[in-house]
């Protein structure tokens, strides 16, 4: 491994931060990791935008609204390697369950007709991102280089993937790490 630290950016789109929590399960291995890695834009650092020279972007969650599209594009533009992390990024996951219901029905239920809704109205503000009519896996919006399966991927998956990349190897996950039942 070279001395220059590898820049890693992370974000959660339509996800639950569970993949980020799982990442933190690296525990004491995090100490070893930060010797080789510098975190750029990430909920872990509170840096708002990606530097232009990020090496690895880890994306949790699918694409459910216009802001997700912008974020994802920023990552694609600035990261050499972009990785779909976890079931929601890869397939849409839990948020994509709304794909079977029309967006109109979803919004009406949540903001107008639902039980206990007060001051019923559809939120409208330029600051608010608009919802896409379907939740999409991230590879349907930008090109993705690698996919880490799991809900969430275990800390060992992150470890194996990142250490492979840091060592200059083509990352590969052994069967035990992608075997779920």
């Amino acid at each position: 491994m070279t001395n220059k630290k590898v820049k890693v950016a992370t974000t959660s789109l339509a996800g639950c931060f569970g993949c980020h929590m799982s990442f933190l399960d690296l525990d004491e291995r995090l100490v070893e990791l930060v010797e080789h890695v510098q975190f750029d834009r990430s909920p872990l650092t509170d840096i708002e935008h990606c530097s232009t020279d990020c090496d690895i972007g880890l994306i949790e969650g699918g694409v459910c609204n216009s802001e997700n599209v912008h974020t994802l594009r920023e990552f694609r533009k600035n990261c050499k390697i972009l990785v779909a992390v976890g079931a929601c990024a890869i397939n849409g996951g839990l948020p994509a369950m709304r794909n079977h219901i029309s967006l109109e029905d979803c919004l009406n239920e949540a903001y107008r007709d639902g039980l206990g809704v007060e001051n019923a109205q559809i939120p409208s503000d330029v600051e608010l991102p608009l919802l896409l009519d379907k939740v999409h896996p991230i590879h349907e919006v930008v090109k993705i280089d690698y996919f880490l399966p799991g809900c969430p991927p275990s800390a060992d998956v992150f470890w194996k993937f990142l250490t492979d990349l840091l060592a200059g190897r083509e990352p590969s996950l052994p069967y035990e790490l992608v075997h779920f039942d």
Partner: protein
Amino acid sequence: MVIEEIQGDFMQQFIKQLAKDNDFKSTSLLSILRAIQTRYFHIPKEAIEQLAELLNIPRTQIQNVIAFYSFFHFEPRGKYDILISSSITDLMVGQEELINYFSEKLDVKIGEVRADSVVSLNNTSCTGMCDQSLAGLVNGYAITKLTKARIDEIVENVNKQLPLEKWSRDLFDVQDNIIKPDLLLNQKPTQGEAINATFARGLMETLNEVEKSGLRGRGGAGYTTAWKWKFCHEENADQRYIVCNADEGEPGTFKDRVLLNSYADSVFEGMTVAAAIIGATQGFIYLRGEYLHLYEKLEAILAARRNANLLGKNILQHGFDFDIEICLGAGAYICGEESALIESLEGKAGIPRNRPPYPVVSGYLNKPTSVNNVETFLAAANIAIHGGEWFANLGTAKSKGTKVLSISGDCAKVGIYEYAFGTTIQTILNDCGASDVLGVQVGGPSGTFISNDEFERKIAFEDLATGGSFIVFNNSRNILDIVHNFSHFFAHESCGFCTPCRVGTSLLKKQVDKIVEGHGSAGDIVALEELCQLIKNYSHCGLGQTAANPVLTTLERYPELYQSMLKKISYEPGFDLDKSLETARRMAHRDDAHAHLAQVED
């Protein structure tokens, strides 16, 4: 309320009687559900509960069957349920325009039921009428050669609520279109001739003749028929079954429809000969639901054969019992796969079984079962009469005899042609009057697309194997439209049992759509190819294993065509990003800059 209760009572009585007529056998589930669907335009919840009890099967099994077959519905369809075939040959005669015209005239959206419950309209997979497109079904009965004038007539009938029996017969006219008969189609054997010849020669001697004839399965897979019968015969069992596979669902194939319409006696005779050889007393003909129009005619022929002692007890005094029952399918392409067909015969969803054991060892009700194609039985009956050599004289070293082809598409004379194996594509194209040909789809979507450089290739198991589908395309056609239609077909017909096929065919459809609709970019062809290999190599049965063929065979021949569809950028989403914000924009009453998305980032 009172009326509803009385109707409920009526339905209960009706279902009870139905179950009773079918001896409360769960294997009759499909035929019972067909009757309920026909009468009530759907399968009501109460009917499911009642049937579960009467047939002593789980409610979920019945729900599974209803969900599985296209012709069963949980929600009522219209009193007139109209389905329009969306096979490629239908698209070639303007299916899209005509179904939209139909929809407009009937005032019902495609896929929906009109508010007054009188009529519903939808697309359906190939109905086996590619020689008389545009085709469709009204309450299950085939309608052909639809034009705007004929559609107007149907709309008038529907709006007048004229009973189907009073519609002009011309709407239901189905032509045989036999253009070029040869060895088999020229035979006019007398009733019982094959049975008598078989017993005169001896059963095992006749099996030897079938082996000598080199007859191989005519469904397309080409397994040696005599071996199938031999293995089935040798299996130790107290009962064996003969099944005729008339679930002709491969788009572009319609020869079994014609064989059953005009050669049914010989087909039944072939089944009887096979039953005598393997030792079966019961046979089934699994007739695809789309061929409902043949049902009564075939029942009448079976009845006549029973009267003539060609079926039933002690057939023609040979001391052998055998009878044939017709089972109607309910709209599922996969049931053409023999183990799925057997599941369907048993009253279940048509999901292919694990093989081995093969049906000849453990088939219908786990008894040895020989499933053969309609044309195979027709050939076998004639071989029983004329001997193996008569048949083996024609054809090539590995493919003996003749093959009946269903020719459709861009040619002057669509219809049924019989050729000795080894005939070149060029000869066939000359005969059917095809000119300016771009290519031919041989063997249907699951077969091969051949380009106009390959017309010296031959119809034969060792070259171009086919179940009989032969669709001609001229140079005005776009190959990607064809691939688009076929990939949608497979995604619709996947039985859903295994993930590589269920998910794979849908992903393949999406990826083809992406490229055809012009959203493709640099990596998309590679992704397409990877997906094809995955579906082909990991699917459970033949459907999945061949579902990628339309893409693979055209990608191999026309790589530059695919490449020309790609944009010169690294990536573009496969769907319209800005359009997918439309609902949210409308509901939030917004149209500011932040309420829009560019398709590709600057």
